[in-house]
């Protein structure tokens, strides 16, 4: 079995492997006996499975992802949520944690322009279903929003959430990272600015080595001396999505 280089930059149409030893996963397809990339991105080989992680691009909804979205529209039984991808997410009244009486005005729960944390429960060709049943899934209060590339989200979160918990600790902010790249920050205004700056920097320089140290230095320099939030201040678990692997 030939070996495939990991973390190699590939372009669409590039042959990643030939033969039946490997399996195509997301970002690739099989053309007869070849596995071909469909993105400009980095290869990721784990065992026999090859995937290509795009360097940038729109968010592709995936089941079990936690996303931060904006309420764009509503009907008698659904909210439509923009999460920065091709389809609007559909959140049904049955999928929220509260009981909604028949004929109730949905705007009393979530209204136009509100931001919510949801989990993707189902993805089909034409629709994305969302659910709000689960820890940490809720409507977001006033806070700062930062948009990062969805492919950079694992970097923002870090290994086992190391990066994001460092930012949270140093800036004493509540932070929710959606897999779609929308980041919500709530804290003292100065701290929000510092947290946003750190997240922008990660988004811009995600490829660089030693980024964690740079971010730590930046936070050390700029963050106020506010006490980090304790467990009691902390709201339920935020980033339940994919963490950085390996």
């Amino acid at each position, binding site marked *: 079995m030939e070996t495939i280089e990991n973390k190699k930059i590939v372009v669409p149409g590039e042959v990643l492997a030939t033969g039946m030893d490997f399996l195509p996963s997301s970002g690739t397809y099989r053309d007869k006996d070849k596995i071909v990339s469909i993105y400009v991105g980095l290869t990721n080989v784990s065992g026999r499975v090859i995937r290509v992680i795009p360097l940038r691009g729109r968010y592709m909804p995936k089941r079990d992802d936690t996303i931060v979205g904006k309420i764009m529209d509503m009907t008698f039984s659904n909210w439509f949520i923009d999460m920065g991808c091709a389809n609007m997410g559909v959140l049904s009244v049955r999928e929220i944690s509260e009981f909604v009486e028949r004929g109730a005005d949905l705007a009393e729960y979530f209204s136009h322009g509100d*931001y919510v944390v949801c989990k993707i429960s189902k993805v089909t060709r034409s629709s994305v279903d969302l659910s709000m049943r689960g820890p940490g899934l809720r409507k977001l*209060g*006033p806070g700062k929003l930062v948009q990062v590339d969805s492919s950079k989200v694992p970097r923002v979160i870090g290994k086992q959430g190391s990066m994001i918990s460092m930012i949270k600790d140093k800036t004493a902010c509540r932070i929710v990272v959606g897999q779609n790249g929308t980041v919500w920050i709530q804290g003292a205004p100065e701290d929000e600015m510092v947290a946003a700056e750190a997240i922008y920097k990660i988004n811009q320089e995600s490829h660089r080595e030693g980024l964690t140290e740079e971010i730590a230095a930046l936070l050390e320099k700029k963050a106020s001396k506010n006490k980090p939030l304790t467990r009691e201040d902390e709201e339920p678990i935020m980033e339940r999505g994919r963490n950085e692997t390996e």
Partner: protein
Amino acid sequence: MTSMMHDHITALLQKEMREDGRKPLEYRKPIKVEYDISPKSAEGSARVTMGDTIVVAGVKLEVGTPFPDSQDEGNLMVNVELTPLSNPDYELGPPSVVAIEYARVVDRALREGHALDTKKLCIKEGEKVWTVIVDLYPINDAGNLFDAFSLAALAALKNANFPTFDKKTEKIDYKKKTKTPLPLDKSPLEVTVIKINGTLMVDPTIEEWKSVDARLTVGVLENGVICAMQKGGPKALTMEDISKMVDIAVEHTAKLRKLL
């Protein structure tokens, strides 16, 4: 309207802060004016950058007939097209209400501030006059299009030169520009002051623009004379607010005019 962003913005304003760390009466940086960005296709052009907002303006000159009530005066037209590429909220098609408002507000300052000496645009009284067309396009709409458009329109007018006009054949040769600039008498410039939850501020971002309570666009001449105004937004303004807003606008137009 009570959206999450509105609550966030008003909460910050209570501490005299804004989304991006500015003070209420502070413009985004850098503010930049570039001239002659399209020397081949327009008689005059300019690009204005205000933070992340970028707009371009082009001035075209045509020969047309005067209006019946101003037989010896040239014409001025201002058009705004809001392109979907600059902001996902904009759509293709005939100009929207928003686009028309932008165009008319910019037009009003130029017209009522008598920026152009329209009598000098007359070629033959009652028959032929120059028509000055100002086209404005946002390249990236990150808020405060009024001020950016006004600045870009004025810069493009300053940059414009007449093309060669042959009186015998009555043809314009756009390829040969003359050295004659447009008869620009005065330079009216507009500044928009917005009010959110009782605080007055300038240069709103997109999110601030969406949660505006009231806004006032004031056109000011170089000597501080007010030549145009437009009020917008869902809420009312008090007399006090207006006089404060006008003072702010006069102060900031003077600052912006230095960039030209």
